[in-house]
């Protein structure tokens, strides 16, 4: 039976701390897992304290927010995963993914925001509990923040072991969605750019409650307009962007990216002094990044980048338009490498369910019916309900995959 969730164990030497002494703010983030048990990655100053603190708070909010609760779901508290932090020698990146699988966010602190030393390159989990969030909200606008990621040897030696342990059940779908959203970003292009005033006005005008039906963004003389008729950029679950409102007045611009094909996922990049906040929205608030559609669709065309991202080894930087190395600090060995749809396709092939006709179409026998797969200019088509419902927007169905595997 396939694993549906893994128990992620966070072991921290101590709670993270935020202190203010003699006017100096210090954020000591404890680390767990990744390249070491408690890797020490960076120590130094974040030059722009208020945007940095506000961005971290925004990420913390996204990490804990279920933007959509299915009607049938008992509203149990979902324990949130801790943010993931990556240091690469020049940048520090913090990533979060909402429990509903629908919103991904990342804070990139670039060289102009950081003044310190890197001790190691790698990725880890960081403790970002409510006690930290309480205090980050008190950062004054002109303060720098001293950031330390990971305990030093003395702290480890004096801690007497791992003082803080938290266990969180991470659905496999969530982990795979976090991987898939990187591939989704690699298929996006810049659509619009707003200056600070336009960004502030736009984010302030967002609906407060979800509304049914598609929403489109239109560029007009004085900014953006939200429309209901299908002209412009389609944005699903747009009210989720309200979480970025507090950052807009500190931003210099807001860039909007949209998917070049497939379902209308969007990405929103806020440029702040020395740093950037990326937020990626799934096509609809009731839909998360599924964990397989984008990857399946890209495995054939984008090759290694998509494959490496699919197994959690790469993130994607929209601003720089490239993948960056980042191995997700989870026990991925417990997560099945193969996508369920691909597995199902392989079973069909093994059962000899695929045969080809003289006209090049494939007949795939599945669930006691024979589906037809054909290849048109806009890609492969199938007669199954999955294809009928999504028309290839969520990647190929198992019948198309089976036919392509057989044809290869």
């Amino acid at each position: 039976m396939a694993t549906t969730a893994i128990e992620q164990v966070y072991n921290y030497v101590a709670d993270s701390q935020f202190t203010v002494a003699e006017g100096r703010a210090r954020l000591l983030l404890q680390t767990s897992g990744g390249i070491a048990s408690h890797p020490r990655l960076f120590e130094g100053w974040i030059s722009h304290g208020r945007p940095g603190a506000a961005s971290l708070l925004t990420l913390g909010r996204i990490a804990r927010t279920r933007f959509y609760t299915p009607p049938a779901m008992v509203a149990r508290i979902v324990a949130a995963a801790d943010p993931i932090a990556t240091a690469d020698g020049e940048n520090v990146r913090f990533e979060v993914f909402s429990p509903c699988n629908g919103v991904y966010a990342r804070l990139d602190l670039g060289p102009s925001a950081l003044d310190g030393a890197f001790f190691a390159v790698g990725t880890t989990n960081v403790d970002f509990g409510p006690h930290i969030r309480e205090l980050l909200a008190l950062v004054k606008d002109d303060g720098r923040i001293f950031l330390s990621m990971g305990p030093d040897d003395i702290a480890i030696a004096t801690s007497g072991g791992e003082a803080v342990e938290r266990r969180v059940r991470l659905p496999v779908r969530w982990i795979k969605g976090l991987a898939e959203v990187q591939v989704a970003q690699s298929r996006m292009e810049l659509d619009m750019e707003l200056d600070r005033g336009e960004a502030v006005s736009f984010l302030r005008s967002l609906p407060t409650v979800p509304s049914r039906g598609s929403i489109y963004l239109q560029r007009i003389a004085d900014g953006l307009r939200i429309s209901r008729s299908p002209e412009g950029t389609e944005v699903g679950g747009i009210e989720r962007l309200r979480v970025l409102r507090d950052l807009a007045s500190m931003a210099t611009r807001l860039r909007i990216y949209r998917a070049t094909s497939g379902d209308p996922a969007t990405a929103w990049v806020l440029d702040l002094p020395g740093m950037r906040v990326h937020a990626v929205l799934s096509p609809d608030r009731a839909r998360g990044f599924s964990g397989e559609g984008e990857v399946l669709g890209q495995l054939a065309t984008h090759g290694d980048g998509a494959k490496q991202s699919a197994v959690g080894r790469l993130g994607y930087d929209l601003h720089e338009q490239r993948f960056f190395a980042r191995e997700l600090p989870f026990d991925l060995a417990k997560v099945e490498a193969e996508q369920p749809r691909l597995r199902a396709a392989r079973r069909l092939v093994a059962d000899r369910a695929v045969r080809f006709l003289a006209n090049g179409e494939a007949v795939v026998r599945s669930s006691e019916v024979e589906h037809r797969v054909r290849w048109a200019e806009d890609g492969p088509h199938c007669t199954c309900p999955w294809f009928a419902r999504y028309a290839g927007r969520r990647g190929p169905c198992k019948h198309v995959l089976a036919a392509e595997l057989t044809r290869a």
Partner: protein
Amino acid sequence: MTVNFESALQDGDAEGVITGLAPLAESERRRLAPQAAQWLKELKANAISRATKPWPYRLDSQTLLRAARAMVVGTASLSELRKLGNWSTPDEDVALRVMADRRPDWLAEWAAFVLENETTSWHTPFLLVKRLITEGLLPRPATSWYPLSMIYGLQRRDRELYQALKADRGLLEDEVWRLFEVEGGGDTSLAAHDKYSADRNSWSWALLQLSGEGLLSRDRLLDASLAALQRDFAPFRAGWFSRFHESLQPTQAERLARKERYLGLVASAVPATASFAVKALRQAGPLSLEDVGQLAPALASSATGVVRDAVRLLPSSVRSAELAAEHLPHRSADIQSALLGLVEKHASQPSVRERLERARASVAPSLAARVATLLSLDAMAARTSQVRAEERAAPPPRRESSTSVPGPIDGIADLVELLAALLEEIQDPHDIERALDGVSRLCERTPDVVRRLEPIVKRAGKLLGERAPARFDGHSPRSDIAGLIIAWATGTPPAAAETPHPLPRWLTGRSARPDPHQKSVLAFLSGRVREVAARAARGEAAPLLSLPTGRGGALEVDEFEARQRRLANAGRRPDPFDAIQARLRADGSDEGERYRFVYGATGEKHISFQLRVEPAMKVEPELTDVPALFYAAVDPAGPDYGGVAASGSTGLAEAIRWVGTVWPSNREPYYAKGALELGGNIDWWAARWELRCFLEPMLIPNEPLGEMATLLLSLGLGAKESGERGLATDVTIAAVAEGRLDVEKAGKTIGGLYNSKLLKGSRLATSLGDASRISQTHAESVSDLIEIALSGLYGPPPSDLHAPLALLNELSAARGHGVKRPTAKAYLTGIEGSGKTAALAKQLLAR
């Protein structure tokens, strides 16, 4: 003494089980676990099926379960207990005695599991776990479920919450404080509990009482409630903590001591928390200059009340002026005016001027002159106006949409895929037409074709299961498509009349029970599908006349005549319903000239919208008299064509969209129906998501907007539901750009509806304001429309007239001239008083 556990279980002898287990070693207990688990499962299965089967035991379920649970919890492993779930959890006494004897090393994990999985608003294991703690069997669990389970865990019928807390002072030292650290969810939160509790049984009241008696530290309560607000709980749950904090009535000194925390909360993502924080700061006393920066998030709030409070709080300083200038881009001119008040005092400072210059483009037109004065450069002001005038003078942006539609399907493979897609969802009614046309032309029943249909036949059959409406009877286009596929694939023609599938008895209303004899426009469309299905069952292919050649069902006359000739040359007669549909699309009908519409809104507290056709229809139209069917539907008791979903009486978007294509040259009765339905639900009393579809044909570039279209549009502009209002705004924008909007007509219609109080001024101002942003032409049109609406008002001014007047004021300021229409001026002149409305009226008259 050896206990016969099997007998003890069957005798419900919990005492015997507990006593028997007590001396056993763990290995002996484990050997008994399978028997215990099996017995519990049997009891559970019989308990669940008690509604349909008699209870097979001589003793009652509670007695037997008590003993069974004692046995299970005394023998099972932790993972077995997890699998057995809440059925295995015993009462407090049993749990205490068994666990005290057994002392498993996983007891803490079991307690955490039970707390997480069994805490609800009607039952919690709090007292069970508390007793284990009290008896020293386990430490207080670290899980947040422990304090959460206490929320409902102390309730008893004979004891108030306050008394329960007072009786156990230990709770006041630990558990109570943990309530301020956890959010909860669903029903399990302080907010949810107190919302549905009488005052004296609320946590808020209980904690206040205990604080008043000195049993809970007031200072700590004040701090804990603020700390909770800093944890970013969801708005509903956060609200409890801010209300509780205020119920403690902090003194000014107490507030001053907590100023830093309030300042931190100004940045809260929860608007109510930010508002609470700003109000609290006002009571704490004047703000110091070094704290000014922390009010920035309040100035960025979309809640005007928060911004207003923050502006009042800010001390006069350069930094305050800088922040105010940065946050000038705000929708409300009132707020901008308040912010400018802060800027004005320090406008000479370079840092303030720089920010003001950056924000200048976002300033409301009515304040442009004030900003220009602050920047003290007339030439610059003029240049700004010039730039704005040039930007807005540009012709309205042309829409890219066209009226063309995809052509006929040309192959079986495409047809099968289209039919498969329609079984899942129907978005575009033209797809139904293409599918119908495709089946009509390609329905030869060769073995290859029948094989290709196999996957969609199965799906169609599933759709037409017990829950779906019957096919071909005017209730569901998807069911009709499913019926079409089945007829074609199986060769079985549609039956003469379908028996309606029964729907649940609790459904009421005329549309609750599908009537196979109902004559409606949708039933006519079902008839078209039935015709094609009948031929497809015989494999008799023939072209259709009625496939549209343009959006909205339009059929070019030339193409229609060409199709007629082709059919005649092939020696075929058209299907009757197809012929009716094609003629209606190509030639139209003058049937509409016989009727007129009468509408109005009445009532004081509850405003009711009515619309009817005159002369009233005395005879039910035939299914082939489609124009008459349209007019008959404009009657609340008339034949509805909105479609019925299998699970309820809600309308179907695809049904409304498809009906909209039937009579493209005269959609007035269709729009009238839309107006009747939307006007009757203007405040969104029922979630009728399908109604916005009536507005969609108005987006077609050459769609005329007659009396009913204008009425529907006007209602849409004032609708509460944002989707309806947004679509109506889109239509207004498109119609103005294409010269289709009769501003005079629209203004009078809106004025009449606004005067009757059916429409709200604030909603109109929002939608019209949005439309006015597009271009100067749009701004002029909206301005004219408001003036015409004002001209139609009489009696005391509506209480929210300030909203449309504020919009008109901005548009006038941007145009550089005042109200044009004498009738509008006369109305404004008659507005007396000193409120916002009167002030705006004076400003408009003075311009």
